[in-house]
């Protein structure tokens, strides 16, 4: 606004002055209107008179001078003497504070930030395209501006040891934001950790910081000072494609030195095939050199391609199937990278090898996990049964977990684990716990069927629950299958259920009880069935009954319980009323059985149920005179009636029995007598009798 106003004023003065002199001619050529336009062009070709720095220092040299910025009072003192000693000492103030050009003094508060654009346009452009510049454009309050690194009025040249961008100071400068605990490291996505620590320990850091070699690379040497970009950006100096040229800025002849490992091919040209520098020399940790002297695979294979080659110690084959290696995931990793102790200067370079292959030199994090696992702990004790990396992943033919041919491909995992954990195998024999027939059970479980029969690779395999490298027994609190962690483990897939469960009375987040069930207490660990299968539905009542002993008994005294006991599921079972994962105490208003919800719960099956209907005792027992006196006395009344009736009728019958036997004999005798009588009587008489009866 200020600038516009000033230029308008200036314009008016100029026009009036010029128009007076040239009025005649101009009016002839163009007329009044055109004259003004031409004069406007003329005006912009003139250099405006800049304010002198002394004008500024007239005020700003005063130490007590204050101004306001964003409502805060700040010191706006700039010492003239001091300023002139710095690199920008001769630069006019308005060269950077461009918005003050032609401003009326004293100028207004809340200036725009000073711009470096006037002189440092290239750097400014680089910065704008960089990670920092983009963040700044987004309005990220953590994004650095020029001033953040270079300072403002007291800027020194980069080769001045006192400068904040002097090579040896750069790690500290960058470290202001890029080290542990800073806002940037905490709140923004930075893929590397302990950057400054690692760097200072690295060979570069040591050179720079400990040995004072200013030629040793600092942060900006690799990341560039202004074009800082993520390695995923193809334009970045640390993009995979560019990393070789970045490193070779210093390590010019490195290809010559690395001949034996990378066959002397040019990294810059074949960066898509060859390993990049950082594949072996991790960024920031460059000290870790994997091999002092390189070996080419070809050198190893001169001996190891022979099928007959054997260890002189124990006679095991040392034959390497090169095809296997070439198809493996490590086909870009050289032999000597894993078999690290080779000595290329020896006639037989491998004779110096003393240790077994240590995969953790690359897979350090996995290695740390493994060390904490039962497998790793046993291996540390040199237990012959302990599985090492190669047991599961193979040796030269290692394949990725996404390769169906890999033993660690989802569908192959049960088979892999079974090789030790099947009944009778080494791990199963040592195992003293409750779970048996693990593999068989798993194969028949819903997870096993999903994986093996339906081929669903997303189904839970052994490692999904037990983890791949941190297997621990369930008794260990760190174990993924420890009672405390089971819900979260199952929840990685069954998240919705976990959420419900964690709000239920069975969750340790809600209940203080010590003996809380976790998923496996009801669903089992390895025999998990579909929850809608008959077998599971009937089984679940026993599961609930394992803890809720008394209440389960009373359930089986009611119609619901009796029907389910006959082996049918179409009747109310525990979870039909109490809920499955969202079980809450009936006194909880959110419970399915709370006063508010109970009727709706009954109505799931009994459509016409009323409030009174819900008064049915679903866990009634006639054995409790205190709680259910009516039922107790009804039962004993009925029992009395039963016993009384049977007693009277029984006594009657028992008394009758002997007499009846006698009576039978008497009747038989009577018939016999009568028969004899009939035989003796006259035939005609008997005929007469018969006739009469008919």
């Amino acid at each position, binding site marked *: 606004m200020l600038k516009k106003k000033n230029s308008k004023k200036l314009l008016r003065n100029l026009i009036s002055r010029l128009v007076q002199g040239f009025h005649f001619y101009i009016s002839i050529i163009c007329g009044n209107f055109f004259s003004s336009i031409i004069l406007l062009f003329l005006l912009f070709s003139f250099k405006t008179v800049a304010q002198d720095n002394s004008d500024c220092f007239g005020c700003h040299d005063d130490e007590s001078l204050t101004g306001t910025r964003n409502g805060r009072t700040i010191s706006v003192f700039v010492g003239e003497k001091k300023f002139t000693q710095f690199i920008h000492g001769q630069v006019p103030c308005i060269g950077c504070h461009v918005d003050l050009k032609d401003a009326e003094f004293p100028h207004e508060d809340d200036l725009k930030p000073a711009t470096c654009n006037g002189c440092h346009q290239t750097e400014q452009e680089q910065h704008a395209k960089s990670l920092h510049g983009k963040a700044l454009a987004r309005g990220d309050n953590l994004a650095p501006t020029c001033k953040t690194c270079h300072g403002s009025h007291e800027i020194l040249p980069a080769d001045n040891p006192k400068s904040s961008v002097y090579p040896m100071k750069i790690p500290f400068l960058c470290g202001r934001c890029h080290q542990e605990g800073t806002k940037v490291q905490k709140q923004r996505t930075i893929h590397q950790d302990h950057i400054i620590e690692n760097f200072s320990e690295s060979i570069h850091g040591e050179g720079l910081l400990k040995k004072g070699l200013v030629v040793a690379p600092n942060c900006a040497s690799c990341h560039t000072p202004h074009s800082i970009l993520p390695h995923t950006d193809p334009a970045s100096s640390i993009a995979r494609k560019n990393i070789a040229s970045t490193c070779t800025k210093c390590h010019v002849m490195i290809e010559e030195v690395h001949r034996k490992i990378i066959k002397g091919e040019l990294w810059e040209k074949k960066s898509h095939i060859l390993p990049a520098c950082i594949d072996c020399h991790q960024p920031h940790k460059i000290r870790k050199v994997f091999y002092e002297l390189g070996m080419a695979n070809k050198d190893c294979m001169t001996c190891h391609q022979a099928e007959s080659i054997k260890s002189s110690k124990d006679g095991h084959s040392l034959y390497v199937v090169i095809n296997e290696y070439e198809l493996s995931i490590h086909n870009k990793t050289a032999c000597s990278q894993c078999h690290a102790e080779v000595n290329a200067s020896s006639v037989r370079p491998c004779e110096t090898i003393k240790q077994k292959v240590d995969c953790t030199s690359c897979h350090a994090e996995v290695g740390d996990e493994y060390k904490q696992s039962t497998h790793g702990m046993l291996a540390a004790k040199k237990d012959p049964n302990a599985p090492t990396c190669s047991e599961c992943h193979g040796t030269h033919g290692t394949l990725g977990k996404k390769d169906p041919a890999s033993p660690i491909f989802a569908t192959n995992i049960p088979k892999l684990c079974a090789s030790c954990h099947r009944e009778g195998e080494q791990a199963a024999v040592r195992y003293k716990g409750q779970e048996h027939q693990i593999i068989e059970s798993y194969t028949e479980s819903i997870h096993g069927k999903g994986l093996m029969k339906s081929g669903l690779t997303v189904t839970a395999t052994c490692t999904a629950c037990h983890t791949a490298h941190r297997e621990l027994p369930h008794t260990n609190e760190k174990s993924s299958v420890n009672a405390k962690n089971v819900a979260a483990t199952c929840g990685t897939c069954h998240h919705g259920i976990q959420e419900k469960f964690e709000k239920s009375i069975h969750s340790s987040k809600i209940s203080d009880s010590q003996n809380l069930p976790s998923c496996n207490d009801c669903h089992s660990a390895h025999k998990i069935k579909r929850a809608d299968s008959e077998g599971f539905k009937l089984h679940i009542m026993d599961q609930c009954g394992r803890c809720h002993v008394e209440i389960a008994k009373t359930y089986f005294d009611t119609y619901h319980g009796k029907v389910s006991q006959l082996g049918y599921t179409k009747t109310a079972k525990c979870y039909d009323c109490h809920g499955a994962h969202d079980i809450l105490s009936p006194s909880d208003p959110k419970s399915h059985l709370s006063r508010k919800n109970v009727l709706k719960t009954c109505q799931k099956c009994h459509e016409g149920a009323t409030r009174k209907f819900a008064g049915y005792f679903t866990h009634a027992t006639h054995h409790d005179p205190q709680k259910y006196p009516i039922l107790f006395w009804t039962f004993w009344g009925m029992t009395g009636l039963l016993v009384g009736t049977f007693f009277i009728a029984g006594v009657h019958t028992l008394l009758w029995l002997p*007499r009846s036997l006698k009576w039978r004999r008497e009747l038989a005798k009577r018939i016999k007598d009568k028969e004899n009588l009939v035989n003796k009587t006259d035939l005609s008489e008997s005929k007469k009798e018969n006739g009469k009866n008919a």
Partner: protein
Amino acid sequence: MERMLKEEDQVLRFSRLNRGLHILMIISFISLSLTGMSLKFSYTSWAVILSHFFGGFEAAGSIHRFAAFVMICVFITHIGDLIRIKRKEAGTWKKLIFGKDSILFNKKDLEDFIGSLKWFLGKGERPEFGRWTYWEKFDYFAVFWGMFVIGSTGLTLWFPEFFTRFMPGWVLNVATIIHSDEALLATGFIFTIHFFNTHLRPEKFPMDIVIFTGRMPLEEFKIDRPQEYKELVEKGELENHLVEAYQPIVIRGIKVFGWTALSLGFFIIIWIIYAMIFSYR
């Protein structure tokens, strides 16, 4: 019995309708007890087998309800028959209820009961029974009582939503106990006491088929119901009651049915005893 029978004459004791009703009663009663007991004793393996035999608890439930319906029909038909008899033969309710051949207990039943007890203990002759003995009357009223008790509670459990509109929910729990225990009493009584009284007592052993044929050999009648015989002879009405015996094939069919019913009854009794003794809870 046949070995006692020398003459073809038989005395008609039960009307065709009553015989039919008794057969329906047997069928429905056994169905009800088998399906009902399978639920009552659901914790025994027998019950599980039986329930599956009926095609599941839902099918068993349907059979139970259908049989209950049949039994209620039998009951209503019997009441209708009583009304018909009152109109045609007795004339007034008083005559029907307090008449000589009434099924209601009277003074003679008390005398017969005391007489029987004396006879059991060897202190007297066998009482001379008339149209109905006191134990037959007891059986009749036991069924009458059972019809009301089991029937009413059964209907409550059949339509719980309806009945709890005007009764509290715990009535269903009470109804369950009464229904189930009264049913236990009924089955227990019929399959032991009733079976002994009519079929198993030595003079009738192994089976009295009079309820199916409706007729009894005259000779047997004379001994079994001496008083009724005497009265009929005195009134000269005996001949009105005499009928011909059934064909042997009919008798055989009746015996097959009778044996089936008896065996099922015994089976149920054994099962109940087994459940009560070995796995009661």
